[in-house]
């Protein structure tokens, strides 16, 4: 891996696989182009109400079509990596659905008021002081807000519940920790240092204490969070300097790391990101809290192995490297580097 590949091998550019918005994909330009065309048409058009109404109608139709198209093709949100993530997406879609309804209603009312015939006296009828209307526009939103508030309760409970099985437990009890894997994630400017407790060994009696006092046989890694399909991973979130935010978009997981605190989080890795052909889908870790000049490059990746055996293989490989008493790289760079004509 660390072998010199000779001068020519290094020329070909390969960007690291990262999650990004594909600006070059033509589908994203369609609504922008339509909007631009509409804008210039407006500049030229006569300012009749009917034209305005048509424009607003066209806009609403474009937005609706684009939204539906993106949702259908899964362009808005990255892949979901566990059940909790899917629930969060469900809530997102619920809110989107409710707001869409009212978007179309308001657009329809707007268009209706523009195209209907003006009253004979040329004056609009004021609605100020209409109690029925006022009660209606208080009760209807209140109802829908209540729906959202109630609908999110189970998900919220799974995230910030009292039990240690919550995603970010409010009342964490180290004695009832039921996780399969313990990892301390320490954010520092500008990387994530991961420390794994070997799951083949006895679990530390107090994971919270373990997070601040490393053990001799811990396995250290940088920027790579490994797990296996079906595992419950206890993440002990810490920081050595400023506030960082540990964000894994695929898990819909985001939690600040606060100086002086150890935050126990539970991550369920229900799905593997290793494809059947052995390639890996990029599941990114990013810092979601501006933490200094190099904030942008505080980035890592999650690897959920298909089986526990695969994970243990990775762990033992890392451990072997970590406990090397010989430089395993020494042989790699030795041969064939005689400077021209010197020896």
């Amino acid at each position, binding site marked *: 891996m660390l072998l010199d590949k000779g001068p020519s091998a290094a020329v070909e550019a390969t960007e690291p696989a990262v999650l990004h918005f594909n600006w070059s994909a033509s589908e994203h330009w369609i609504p922008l182009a339509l909007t631009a065309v509409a804008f210039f048409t407006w500049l030229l058009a006569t300012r009749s109400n009917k034209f305005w109404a048509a424009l607003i109608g066209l806009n609403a139709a474009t937005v609706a079509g684009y939204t539906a198209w993106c949702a259908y093709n899964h362009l808005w949100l990255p892949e979901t990596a566990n059940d909790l993530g899917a629930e969060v997406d469900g809530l997102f879609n619920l809110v989107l659905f409710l707001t869409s309804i009212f978007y179309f209603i308001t657009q329809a009312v707007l268009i209706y008021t523009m195209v209907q015939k003006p009253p004979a006296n040329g004056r609009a009828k004021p609605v100020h002081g209409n109690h029925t209307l006022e009660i209606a526009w208080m009760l209807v939103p209140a109802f829908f807000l209540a729906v959202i508030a109630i609908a999110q309760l189970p998900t919220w409970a799974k995230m910030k519940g009292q039990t240690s099985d919550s995603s970010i437990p409010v009342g964490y009890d180290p004695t009832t920790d039921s996780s399969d894997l313990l990892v301390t994630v320490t954010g520092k400017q500008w990387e994530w240092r991961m420390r794994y407790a070997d799951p083949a060994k006895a679990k530390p009696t107090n994971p919270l204490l373990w997070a601040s006092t490393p053990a001799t046989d811990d396995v250290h890694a940088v920027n790579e969070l490994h797990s296996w399909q079906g595992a419950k991973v206890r993440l002990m979130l810490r920081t050595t300097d400023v506030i960082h935010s540990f964000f894994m978009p695929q898990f819909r997981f985001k939690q600040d790391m606060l100086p002086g605190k150890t935050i126990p989080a539970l991550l369920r890795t229900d799905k593997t990101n290793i494809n059947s052909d052995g390639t890996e889908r990029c599941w990114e870790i990013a810092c979601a809290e501006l933490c200094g000049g190099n904030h942008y490059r505080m980035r890592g990746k999650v690897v959920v192995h298909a089986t526990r055996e695969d994970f243990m293989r990775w762990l033992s490989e890392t451990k072997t490297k970590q406990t090397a008493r010989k430089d395993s*790289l020494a042989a790699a760079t030795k041969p064939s580097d005689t400077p021209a004509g010197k020896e």
Partner: protein
Amino acid sequence: MAWLSVTGLAVTGGILGCGVVEIPDGVVYPLRSNPLINLEKAPATAPPAFPPPGKPEVSLRWLADQGVAILNPADLDSHEWGKAWRDEVNTFLIGQFGTPAKPRVGNEGSAAAAIGKLSTSLNLAPAVLERGSKQYRRLCLHCHGLGGEGAGATSGWLNPLPRDFRQGEFKFISTAEHKLETGNQPLKARPRRVDILRTLHQGLDGTSMPSFALLAEEDIQALASYTLHLSIRGEVEYWALYYALRQDTETIKAIEKDPKKEAQARTARFLAGALEWEDPEADVEDFVAKTKDKLLTAGMEKLLDRLLREYAAADKNPIQPMADPYGDAPTTSQSLANGLKIFQVQCVNCHAGYGRQSALRFDNWGGVVRPANLTTPVYKGGRRPVDLYYRIFRGIPPCGMPKANLQDGDPARQAWDLVRFLLAIPYPETLPPEIRQQIHGGAKQ
């Protein structure tokens, strides 16, 4: 109309930062302007503290107060010969090392370029360096600076300071002490390529240098090559300016003979320096006679050649760790007791209180460093046992950490006792009671 909208969108895209902005060809590496430290006289007293945040230059003032010579390149401006000297150095550097947009080592077709290109351990082909330069500007520049001066925008607020590559010195190396094929010592302790790669892969734990392991391997390789490029460029510049500025007795005597010929006197000193190191037999006078004009340039060319061979040679002289006599067996109490005994002879002077009460000291860059606190499992140069072995048996030359000197008995056993002891210090629960008592006191269990 359609064209107008397309143009409008393109302009918006440009403003938002779509597309890659390349560094213009005309941007050149800045010639060194910050002071050089004359290392010939070691500082007598330790620094009082770390420099305050944002003011790393304060430590140079502390050094100056102790009578350590601080050589300021700006002083060259006060002499006609000095300006000419500086211009010659600058022309040479641009000619041999190119620009950030088009970096290279050695002129097209020169011997230096051939070494850099052909040696796979250096891997200094222009295409590789160009790729490295691009990544460097994206990821490294704002701490390490455009020319590798370690003074990027954020550098002043970091402790330890980002490395200034231009001295050709590296802290965490696994190169054995060796001689060049000419029989000389290398000018400085050189890193092997894997040492630089290790730092790029793992970062330096406990410092602001992060891991770049998730980059494409080709990018990491290119960054390692580019680091070498900056180091070699910087070191040629370093020695050329060093001899233009330093005031040792011999130089002063030579200048006093004929004050008008200061440039010639200093060039001779520079040549003596460069050639003497390379080949004690070489006759400076002879070299001077052969090279009728541009003596300084000829000297710098020789120096560049030498540096390239030094880096190539470093790669072929790794420390070969003695086999661990205990193999994979767990550490025994006896081993720890032996390690402690060696520690108390070899290490405790600097790592007082197992590093908790280490006294500060100056490093070769004029900065302030503190010997590591070994009671926390944070190891800048890597946490593998072999990394600790390298630190013990090579030391950290630029910071004055000497290599351990194990004489009596079985050296392999002693070495690995010490490594095993160091790795156990941070974990009180793994230590036998009497050693735990000694290191951690009674309180910590």
